[in-house]
């Protein structure tokens, strides 16, 4: 018996992964993707957090080389980190199903850019499915694994914020496939990408994409609504839902398999209506591809490239209404919580007039009043290395003011390489890194990481020691301090280190105020 329930897109993906026999789910937390692996674990599936997205994808590739199904989850910018393995596994493929979730964040509810990861499907030559609601998340994910195995290709599964977090009615199937027992068959020509084999693999990939386009033309992932012959809309993902409300009389061609596109289906649809408009969130990916194929369609005005679409904006887009949009009334900005251990750290950094190279996490909020302490923030792990660059280029007096701050989870993600760089290419003035260790991955919802001593499901795990790691790499000084309890001592220590030419790591350790209560319950449950 199938059952009906209310589920978010993320929950639906987790249910489908469990129901179709995923051997391992692996990822790195990132809004809006973070809940998928928690849900998979809660439902009884195997799931684990990797230190970063590249690591996650590579572990999953191993699982899929062992003829099992593997699910990888990350937010859009995570795919930048995982791009290296992605572009080559696109060539070799895996015998077991491999599906990579890319959760994009148009409008940047909680991100540093609004990159459109449909571009990755094209650039890497990886088929992409793009569900528009929880039901499609569930149905498409199961099919994604079948397609991955049938064509020996990784499949990119693109979600967006509103698909991930919107709840809607889902009919969950009753079939459960048990995860397969792994087995290995040597196939070096497919799995070892030396140039001689990769040249063959590249041709095979292009041939597979032609076959996948034929599969897409069969219409399984396309929904066509025939209404008005005056207006036709080609759309995908959440934009499809807005189109249904904004243009109830329009004919609609909804694309669910967004690369390679079903160009003949699109050609027929476009020819059947007087005016054909492409309504897509983010970059004009479909509009450009369709026009390049010689099919005349209208794209959207530049103003609709920014931010999320919604019903009102789709109405304006279709009407060609270019009236400048009034920004919504500003709400209250997020801020570091009262009692947050980062507060005292930032007060000291501000008072010492440090140039703070920042990173990604709650502590990026140190840029806002009353601290206004953070000077730069680029991407995960960049604080240490950007700080080193500043130290190399600035005159001595200013170089001495540069401090890199990075969270515990971000340090494990891509901060370790920055410490290697610091020891190897040490600036003349040395450098100071403050690791803000609040013992959790707070911003994305208090997930575990390699240094917390707990697994994804909060059961005990071996803990990677931050102090041993940086000492082992060879920094001159490592100090651990609770900056809330010993603010003055921290200030004095920081002044000392900044004045020296040494390389220093100061670990500001105090648990996140939100995590404290939860951490106690993890102990009780065990």
């Amino acid at each position: 018996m199938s059952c009906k329930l209310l589920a978010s897109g993320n929950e639906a993906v987790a249910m489908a992964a469990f129901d179709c026999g995923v051997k391992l789910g692996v990822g790195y937390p990132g809004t809006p993707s973070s809940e998928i692996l928690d849900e998979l674990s809660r439902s009884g599936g195997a799931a684990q957090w990797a230190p970063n997205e590249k690591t996650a994808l590579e572990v999953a590739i191993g699982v899929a080389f062992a003829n099992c199904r593997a699910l990888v989850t990350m937010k859009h910018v995570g795919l930048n980190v995982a791009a290296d393995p992605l572009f080559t596994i696109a060539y070799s493929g895996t015998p077991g199903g491999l599906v990579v979730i890319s959760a994009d964040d148009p409008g940047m509810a909680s991100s540093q850019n609004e990159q459109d990861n449909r571009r990755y499907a094209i650039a890497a030559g990886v088929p992409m499915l793009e569900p528009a609601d929880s039901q499609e998340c569930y149905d498409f994910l199961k099919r994604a694994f079948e397609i991955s195995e049938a064509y020996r290709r990784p499949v990119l599964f693109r979600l967006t914020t509103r698909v991930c977090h919107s709840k809607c009615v889902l009919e969950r199937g009753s079939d459960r496939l048990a995860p397969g027992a792994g087995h290995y068959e040597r196939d070096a020509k497919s799995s070892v990408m030396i140039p001689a084999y990769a040249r063959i693999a590249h041709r095979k990939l292009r041939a597979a994409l032609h076959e996948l386009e034929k599969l897409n033309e069969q219409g399984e992932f396309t929904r066509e609504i025939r209404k008005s012959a005056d207006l036709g809309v080609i759309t995908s993902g959440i934009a499809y839902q807005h189109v249904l409300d904004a243009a109830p009389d329009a004919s609609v061609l909804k694309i669910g398999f967004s690369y390679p596109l079903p160009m003949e289906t699109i050609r027929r649809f476009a020819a059947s209506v007087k005016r054909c408009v492409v309504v897509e969130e983010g970059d004009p990916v479909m509009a450009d591809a369709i026009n390049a194929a010689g099919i005349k369609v209208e794209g959207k005005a530049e103003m609709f490239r920014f931010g999320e679409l919604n019903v009102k904006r789709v109405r304006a887009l279709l009407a060609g209404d270019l009236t400048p949009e009034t920004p919504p009334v500003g709400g209250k900005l997020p801020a570091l919580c009262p009692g947050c251990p980062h507060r005292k750290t930032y007060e000291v950094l501000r008072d010492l007039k440090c140039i703070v190279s920042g990173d990604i996490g709650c502590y990026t909020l140190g840029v806002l009043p009353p601290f206004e302490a953070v000077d730069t923030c680029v991407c995960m792990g960049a604080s240490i290395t950007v700080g080193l660059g500043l130290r190399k280029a600035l005159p001595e007096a200013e170089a001495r003011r540069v401090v890199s701050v990075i969270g515990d989870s971000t340090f494990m993600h891509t901060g370790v390489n920055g410490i290697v760089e610091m020891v190897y290419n040490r600036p003349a003035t040395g450098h100071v890194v403050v690791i803000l260790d609040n013992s959790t991955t707070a911003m994305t919802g208090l997930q575990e990481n390699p240094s917390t001593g707990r697994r994804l499901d909060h059961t005990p795990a071996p803990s990677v020691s931050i102090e041993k790691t940086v000492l082992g790499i060879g920094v001159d000084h490592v100090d651990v301090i609770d900056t809330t309890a010993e603010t003055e001592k921290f200030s004095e220590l920081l002044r000392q280190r900044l004045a020296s030419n040494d390389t220093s790591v100061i670990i500001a350790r105090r648990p996140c105020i939100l995590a404290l209560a939860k951490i106690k319950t993890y102990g009780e449950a065990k």
Partner: protein
Amino acid sequence: MGCCCNTINVTVAGLGGQGVLKVTDILAEVMFQAGFDVKKSEVHGMSQRGGSVSSEVRFGKKVASPMVPEGESDILAVLEPTQIETNLGKLRKGGVLITTDDIPLDKLTNPKALNSMMLGALAAHFDQPDELWINVLKANLPAKLHELNVEMFNLGKNAIKR
């Protein structure tokens, strides 16, 4: 409200930590169990660190977009007075605004249960039986919080005259 042919739009707003999302979780589940097509939408992550939060529920015979179009909320419930102005543009002309002025705050014995009182005030605008609301409310909370939250729900509900 609760007619079967039109889509009903409800927006609940407040600040991070007030339990806004719990209110819409329960509302969505009640309407789902009552047989409607339901969609619910909000954003997570950085926007929740004590910042403004709003969450939307749409229900009816068939719902497409999960986001309530601007200015088309039939009901807007706001848990924090400073957030009324920010969200007022979401309410349709003639729509119902519920604020903390409409509920008996003097009887709120625990500030954490404000959302249950507001849920009660919301429930007063729909025809679904109390039993359904209370069952779903309980299913969303640990047992030790049931008594308090059911009491606050009832206080909120009885405060609204239909």
